[in-house]
């Protein structure tokens, strides 16, 4: 292999090493350590000046205590399950909202499509935090939504939406909607309209043609969109802390509390490691889907 090629291949690997593998090893190491009243708040610390013996006692001090601890308190597995559930439900809702939007965009006149695409990504131009705060303003007891509903007379007392799971769903669906729309739109836009005419010609109604042709042909986009929403939604922390209530249990929030409120870095790290292991399954599936799609096109 010539040096040029080695260099080209090495760059992404060094990148991964620096930004993923090294931080991962650090977190893994902390998760195997014990909490300590020190700075940083865990022990043992790696002391290279102690030489070979120091290294040996360092490794001897590492153990799986924190992982065992996670199994003793049902808060953790409940938080994991609840995160998975919230992420799954939000993904389905995002799909139900996003698919028609992507479909509408792909069907729109060609000169409108760039504008519609711009509108979908427009929210990214303001800070994510500001947008979540805006939702607090909309959903709160005296918020815009309740005021409007009271004004129309549809309700007589304000609805409690903020600080419930419903608000979390609204927040996640709103935030991740573009990640659902864009891959589905990309799949639908490529589709040849004459396929739908062919389906109709062969005896399909418009509805059956949609289910038998449009949906299968946008499958790769649907799968990509679902993963792009599901994976970050599991670890979501800002939305459940700002919009959710005390009853909203999500692993991102637990992790934050372990880290900053309890200053228990080792347990927080163990939580993070488990979360990563849970996420690896959908990430690998996602990669597979991408690869299969590339093969089908190539």
């Amino acid at each position, binding site marked *: 292999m010539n040096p040029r090629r080695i260099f080209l291949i090495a760059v992404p690997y060094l990148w991964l090493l620096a930004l993923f593998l090294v931080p991962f090893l650090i977190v893994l190491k902390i998760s195997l350590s014990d909490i300590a009243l020190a700075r940083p708040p865990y022990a043992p610390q790696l002391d290279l000046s102690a030489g070979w013996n120091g290294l040996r006692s360092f490794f001897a001090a590492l153990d799986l205590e924190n992982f065992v601890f996670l199994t003793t308190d049902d808060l953790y597995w409940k938080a994991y399950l609840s995160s998975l559930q919230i992420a799954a439900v939000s993904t389905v809702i995002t799909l139900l909202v996003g698919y028609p939007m992507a479909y509408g965009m792909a069907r729109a006149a060609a000169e409108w499509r760039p504008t519609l695409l711009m509108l979908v990504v427009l929210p990214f131009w303001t800070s994510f935090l500001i947008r979540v705060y805006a939702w607090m303003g909309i959903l709160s007891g005296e918020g815009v939504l309740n005021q409007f509903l009271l004004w129309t007379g549809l309700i007589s007392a304000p609805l409690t939406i903020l600080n419930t799971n419903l608000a979390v769903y609204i927040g996640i669906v709103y935030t991740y909607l573009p990640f659902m729309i864009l891959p589905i739109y990309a799949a639908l836009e490529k589709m040849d309209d004459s396929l739908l005419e062919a389906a109709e010609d062969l*005896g399909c109604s418009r509805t059956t043609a949609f289910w038998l042709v449009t949906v299968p042909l946008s499958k790769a986009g649907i799968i990509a969109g679902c993963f792009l929403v599901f994976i970050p939604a599991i670890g979501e922390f800002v939305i459940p802390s700002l919009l959710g209530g005390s009853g909203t249990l999500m692993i991102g929030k637990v992790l934050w509390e372990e880290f900053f409120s309890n200053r228990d870095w080792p347990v927080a790290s163990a939580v993070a490691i488990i979360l990563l292991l849970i996420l690896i399954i959908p990430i690998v599936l996602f990669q597979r889907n991408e690869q299969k799609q590339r093969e089908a096109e190539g």
Partner: protein
Amino acid sequence: MSQTVFAPWDDPTQKPLIQFKGVTKRFGDFTAIDNLSLDIFEQEFFALLGPSGCGKTTMMRMLAGFETPTSGTILLSGQDIAPVPPNKRAVNMMFQSYALFPHLSVWDNIAFGLRRGNSSKDEIAQRVEEMLRLTRLEKFSKRKPHQISGGQRQRVALARSLAKAPKLLLLDEPLGALDAKLRQDTQFELMDIQEKTGTTFVIVTHDQEEAMTVASRVAVMDEGRLIQVATPPEIYEAPATVYVADFIGDVNILEGKAHQAGDKVEIAWADGELPIRGTTARTFAPGQTCHFAIRPEKVTISTERPDSANVLRGKVIDIAYLGNLSTYHVRLGNGTMMKAQTANTRRLANRGITWEDDVWLSFTDTAGVLLEH
């Protein structure tokens, strides 16, 4: 042995399968089809021929149900089809782009239409196998459309559109993507299939040779209008207008003033040249401008002055060698170019005529046609 000639269009007792009655189609203020009337009969292999953009696809799409006429009616077996949606018409279309479903195998593509009806699984399987045999695709039934060649894809599209045994099959430039040899083979295959299945075919093409080969009748279109509808020999031998004569095959056109006596016409076409003698069933007013159209293969080229009704003198400018035929481009005395074609019955080396030779062109007084415009 007597053979009945297939010519339902000459038989007034025959009911046409398709009738266009004063059909106009506008897109905005652009008229794609202009007050068009046309009858197509059962078991016909009907070709729509015309330059790109003349409205051929639009005609097909109206038959299939994807466009509705702006005015006029289209009847299928005597029934107005305007209120019938595409999925309820006994019409199937083979799309110009084939429109095969990329996510389905060849087998499932062909079965797609059958599954929409209420046939049993066995019936569907039987019919699909039959179609695969007919189009010689048995070996490819499990492949996806992107795993087969262009010619095979085209056969899948044909099999899929034939599977439901439609009353009428529409083929929109079905052979456009094929190379010359495969195209010719497929044309014969199409004719064979049409004969075997007895389906009425309407084929769109911009290739005149293809239309002449496959069709029972050809309609020549221009700018949304029918210029002539006739059998291939009629279209070729008796074109209705200069446009048709020019569009179908090679032709020499000479313009001049007609002087008619009975069915014989003399055309004064150039100063200093003898008038051309022709025969016509039309009547031309004395001195009326007319066009004399003659096919190159009906013009004889010789080095000696022949004895014929029409004899013209010229010089060979160019020779196009086509293998079986040679076309001589001859400049006449007044500069007009004329083409003469001969069969190459002898080897090239033995040919008597070459560049710059002075030659005689001759043709009988019935070899050409006289056209008003």
